[in-house]
């Protein structure tokens, strides 16, 4: 551990002050761990925060609830550290036409309350999650299954003042494409062929639920009962605003068997105190570092840190309604902006290597990623080319320089630093005014993006739900997609995505998705910036830890001293 000179000076002040008041601080000390071999019974303490919803897999779409749900439940498949799906509860998953799927469910599997898991469990759980009446946040993950439209139907009313209200109005209780032929066979008919459909079966929305969850989801979500590598230590293990305690589920047998005795998630409203706790071995592992620690964590935690690329990327989106970026001139300008960003340097200087320059619209850790797609040369910093393209655009249509080009973002989480760097790049290389348009909160930017009223560019990010190329393209850039806030639309791009989904093999599908990315490089509705690498640090009580494909810590894989 290393202390800076300032912190030592501060420490002296503190000692002086304490000596003065004649008052010492009591409390426990930390017993230093001595053994080096892993202790399979030791409980790990991990950084987290209060989950925002009851702990139901299909309702949990934020990280702090997600990490608990993923440990409490096991689905048909799960993802290994590299994001490769492996069968967990599924014995086999087969389809000859990518539309009709037959899934054999392992027999003899049970929830921790003794309830058996059969094919019917999945049918009931999925129908529950997809039903619009149950208001599950992740309900749309079932959209590919035939009959989803009926169970998820809604009615939209328009009030006199023009406000619309959407209310659930399902016309069926079960999806027609979903049947349990017998206890061990689940057949799924999709609305149309989708080659990568089985990739997503490891996502938490597809986890099985015991019958108690369907009867009273809210009560169940307080004390969930699952089938995963861990279970609640006791009823009431979730102490709101403080912690959640999980212990190893001894009955679990699957690919994610726990190497430790349990995980206690301690809630922190700020990563700063957690970092201090880690230094004092009062917390065992954290995947959220305070932004001022990014420069020091490697030296503060020598041999006790890891940084691995994950499936999260960032883009700088350019709204199509901005007159400066329309038509042929707009196209040249979008390219010029991209050439004017020195991704390499910003990743190194501002992010201290926790970002790598983007190479495409999806990060390299995703299966099917291809480097050097047509048009991807615009991701290289080239000041001369940027200036040249900008001048060409000005000849076609003069740039309206009356207002500075703004980049909208919430300023917390260290966003201001890199946006300043990007804006400076625009200023220096293109000779235009550029600045950050700061917001206190993420939601404010989101509202303005949704209502198409941002004057300039906006920061956007995407974390993969499941390891598939499509997941980085469809929900973000397809016409009318749920997170396509800038309303980009290109029928050719949509068509390639559909063809990719309908492909018989994953390779063929990925080929189509990469072709679709080339269209994005042509249109540049957003400029890929960088892909994220996730740093984690751990205490002296932990031997080894790593993150998975999506940046989540593989808690079950942690060995403790």
């Amino acid at each position, binding site marked *: *551990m290393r*202390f800076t000179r300032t*912190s030592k000076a*501060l*420490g002296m*002040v*503190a000692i002086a*002050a*304490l000596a*003065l008041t004649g*008052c*010492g*601080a*009591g*409390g*426990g*000390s930390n017993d230093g761990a001595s053994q080096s071999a892993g202790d399979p019974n030791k409980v790990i303490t991990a950084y987290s925060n*209060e*989950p*925002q919803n*009851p702990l139901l897999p299909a309702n949990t779409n*934020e990280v702090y609830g997600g990490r608990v749900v993923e440990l409490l439940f096991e689905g048909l498949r799960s993802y290994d550290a590299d994001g490769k799906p492996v069968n967990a509860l599924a014995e086999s998953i087969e389809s000859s036409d990518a539309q009709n799927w037959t899934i054999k469910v392992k027999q003899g599997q049970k929830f921790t309350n003794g309830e058996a898991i059969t094919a019917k469990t999945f049918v009931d759980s999925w129908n529950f999650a997809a039903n*619009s009446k149950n*208001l*599950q*946040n*992740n*309900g*749309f993950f079932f959209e590919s299954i035939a009959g989803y439209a009926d169970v998820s139907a*809604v009615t939209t009313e328009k009030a006199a003042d023009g*406000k619309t*209200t*959407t*209310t*659930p109005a399902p016309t069926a209780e079960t999806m027609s494409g979903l049947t349990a032929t017998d206890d061990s066979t689940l057949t799924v008919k999709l609305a149309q062929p989708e080659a990568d459909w089985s990739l997503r079966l490891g996502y938490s929305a597809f986890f099985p639920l015991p019958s108690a969850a369907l009867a009273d989801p809210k009560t169940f979500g307080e004390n969930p009962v699952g089938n995963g590598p861990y279970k609640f230590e006791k009823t009431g293990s979730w*102490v*709101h*605003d*403080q912690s959640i305690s999980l212990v190893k589920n001894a009955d679990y047998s699957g690919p994610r068997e726990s190497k430790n005795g349990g995980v206690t998630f301690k*809630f*922190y*409203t*700020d990563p*700063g*105190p957690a970092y*201090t*706790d880690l*230094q*004092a071995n*009062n917390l065992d592992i954290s995947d959220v570092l305070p932004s001022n620690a990014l420069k020091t964590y490697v030296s503060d935690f020598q041999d006790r840190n890891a940084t691995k690329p994950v499936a999260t990327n960032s883009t700088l989106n350019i709204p199509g309604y901005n007159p400066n970026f329309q038509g042929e001139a707009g196209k040249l300008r979008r390219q010029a902006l991209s050439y004017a960003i020195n991704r390499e340097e910003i990743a190194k200087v501002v992010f201290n290597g926790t970002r790598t320059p983007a190479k495409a619209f999806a990060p390299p850790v995703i299966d099917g990623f291809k480097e050097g797609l047509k048009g991807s040369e615009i991701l290289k910093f080239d000041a001369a080319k940027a200036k040249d393209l900008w001048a060409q655009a000005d000849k076609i249509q003069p740039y309206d320089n009356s207002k500075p080009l703004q980049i909208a973002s919430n300023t917390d989480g260290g966003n201001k630093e890199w946006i300043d760097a990007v804006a400076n790049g625009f200023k220096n290389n293109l000779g235009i005014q550029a600045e950050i348009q700061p917001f206190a*909160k*993420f*939601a*404010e930017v*989101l*509202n303005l993006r949704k209502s198409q009223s941002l004057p300039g560019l906006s920061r956007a990010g*995407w*974390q993969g739900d499941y390891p598939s190329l499509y997941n980085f393209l469809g929900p973000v850039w397809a016409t009318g997609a*749920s*997170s396509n806030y800038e309303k980009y639309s290109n029928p050719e791009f949509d068509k390639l995505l559909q063809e990719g989904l309908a492909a018989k093999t994953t390779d063929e599908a990925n080929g189509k998705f990469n072709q679709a990315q080339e269209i994005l490089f042509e249109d540049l509705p957003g400029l890929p910036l960088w892909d994220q690498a996730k740093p984690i640090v751990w205490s002296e009580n932990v031997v080894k830890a790593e993150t998975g494909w999506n940046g989540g810590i593989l808690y079950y894989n942690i060995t403790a001293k």
Partner: protein
Amino acid sequence: MVRFILRRLLQAIPVLLGTTLLVYYMVFALPGDPIAALFGDRQPPQAVIDTLRSQYHLDEPFWVQYGLFLQNIFTFNLGNDFTGQPIAASLARVFPVTAMLAIEALAIQTVFGVGFGVFAGLRRGGWFDSTVLVASLVVIAVPTFVLGFAFQLVFGVQLGWAKPTVGANADWGNLLLPATVLGLVSFAYVLRLTRASVSESMNADYVRTATAKGLSRPRVVVAHILRNSLIPVVTFLGADLGGLMGGAIVTEAIFNVPGVGNKLYQATLRTEGPTIVSIVSVLVLVFVVANLLVDLLYAWLDPRIRYDQ
């Protein structure tokens, strides 16, 4: 006396209405859709958003929302926050923790502040007096968060005497470190107030009389000098208690104390009007009661003060 107390408690009602209205309106006026903020880039189906919005009456105009909140308060049902947790239950979790922290801090600053203040005041100009004066100036000048980080680093990490954060184990021992940091700044003020007040009373006629009567030195100091010097100190401590209850946001954040300050901070980030205003209402009551106690203490300290006139 009873009439005085009743009158003061009745005065709390308009204060409460005024503050809740003001705070509620400020939260209402904050930009950004709180329901959209619950979800990140990945927004849920529109039906979920709309249902939540109508469930929390966010689609109603301000006066309806505020009216519903008042109705809730008077029926002792504070409703749920945006994560679906009952607000009353979370208040019941955070207030005891912060109350412990505040009482511990108050005890530290009173005992050491008054104690050191009396010694310094009795020997004005002596080496002890000069040392504490300079030291208290230093404490006042250093911001709380610097003190907090310094204490955490030295006692929590380097020396390992205390746990650097409190977290779920909020007991008197674990709260000692944050309570010391929290009490330290007010300690300096209490010390200086006591010192000034004591050294002034030392020259008062009644002290000379008491000494001339042959009373022992301790009796003169405790019963005559100290008691008469306490009125400004008690006034300060009363106002400070309210501040300790609600204003410990920085200290609670540094030491990860699951108390009022932390809850208030999170609720503000989420634009949760009802949670914020519920907390503020309790804080207003704490202020009112603390000040009432101070007023009652005046009569005990100085029998010349009367209430029923």
